[in-house]
């Protein structure tokens, strides 16, 4: 077992984080998530730079005193939960998760003629594309390499089948995958990708309290070549439930897109500031470095 760990460990996880994940995975869901949330809060007491960063973010949300500290602690705890969820710690099967997945705004997806671009963001809970699949939507995923123990379980494989994953690389190689994604959209299938990943050309920045949201350009290129509607998708956690909200399609012009995304995120950061972990902790190596 000890020898097998380094071989099986996905590269985005540090060795200590991976051992912790494997240990917590043995517990019934959601205890592993809860304990990892607590671990992140305790870790920040030792790694003071994390605590300072969380407090800086909380201060930028116009909070002070005890409320600022509470938000900082909640933000750190959410970061731990998000890491646990990205590895699907403790969730044995999609069926076990289904009662805790709620999709809002599905009518926007239903009214899309042909394929739609579902534009996700690294806020709330990770795995919204998986949540959509669990809820019965057929969604292709386009993004960087993702490997986790949870998804390699036989019970999860039908939902993360290799054919449904469009794995993109940095640099020119990614262009080939974008071309395949164009074909998928033109064939009438939906493609989910995140707009704020660490890879790709920057399209624009949405200024937000505490730091900007950096929006990449890949989805714009897909839209240009397919005319597919772009539906922003935001997720948040309500207790144990993963709520995915599909918003109405973005308008064609870029200035209006910036404005609408700005409004969506102003509202999101006001309602769920503790779930904005990538805005509070922008990873230097991009979102793939999140869990390291």
């Amino acid at each position: 077992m000890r020898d097998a760990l380094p071989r099986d460990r996905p590269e985005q996880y540090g060795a200590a984080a991976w051992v912790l994940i494997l240990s917590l995975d043995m517990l019934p869901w959601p205890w592993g998530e809860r304990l990892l949330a607590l671990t992140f809060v305790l870790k920040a007491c030792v790694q003071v730079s994390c605590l300072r960063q969380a407090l800086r973010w909380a201060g930028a949300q116009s909070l002070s005193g005890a409320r600022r500290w509470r938000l900082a602690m909640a933000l750190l705890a959410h970061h731990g939960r998000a890491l646990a969820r990205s590895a699907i710690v403790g969730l044995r099967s999609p069926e076990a998760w289904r009662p805790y997945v709620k999709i809002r705004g599905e009518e926007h997806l239903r009214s899309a003629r042909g394929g739609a671009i579902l534009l996700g963001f690294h806020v709330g809970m990770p795995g919204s594309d998986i949540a959509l699949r669990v809820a019965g939507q057929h969604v292709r995923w386009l993004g960087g390499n993702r490997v986790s123990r949870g998804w390699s379980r036989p019970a999860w494989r039908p939902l993360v089948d290799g054919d449904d994953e469009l794995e993109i690389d940095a640099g020119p190689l990614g262009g080939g995958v974008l071309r395949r994604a164009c074909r998928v959209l033109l064939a009438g299938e939906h493609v989910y990708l995140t707009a704020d990943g660490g890879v790709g050309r920057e399209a624009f920045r949405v200024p937000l309290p505490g730091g900007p949201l950096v929006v990449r350009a890949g989805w714009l290129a897909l839209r240009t070549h397919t005319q597919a509607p772009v539906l922003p998708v935001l997720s948040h956690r309500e207790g144990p439930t993963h709520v995915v909200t599909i918003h109405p399609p973005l308008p064609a012009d870029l200035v209006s897109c910036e404005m609408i995304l700005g409004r969506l995120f102003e509202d999101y950061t006001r309602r769920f500031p503790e779930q904005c972990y990538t805005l509070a902790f922008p990873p230097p190596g991009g979102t793939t470095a999140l869990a390291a």
Partner: protein
Amino acid sequence: MTDPILRRVLAIVSRVAGPGRTPPDAGPETGLGEQGYWLDSVDMLEVVIACEHEFGVVLTDPADLTGKSLTSVRTLAELIERKLA
């Protein structure tokens, strides 16, 4: 390698990269990524679509668009030549 294909691919890549990123000594061996034209994924999508239109080929097979075929202007031209054969 048919020279006209190479020349046309070179022209497409240079047009997408623009004068700012086209190396002064750009040629068939110039890389498409770092140390060459510095194309990113969005640029490469433009190049692939332009090549499809220019040559009437379809380049969506995962086996087509690999690291090997997207290394340089020459390897991309060789891919197109194979598709035309």
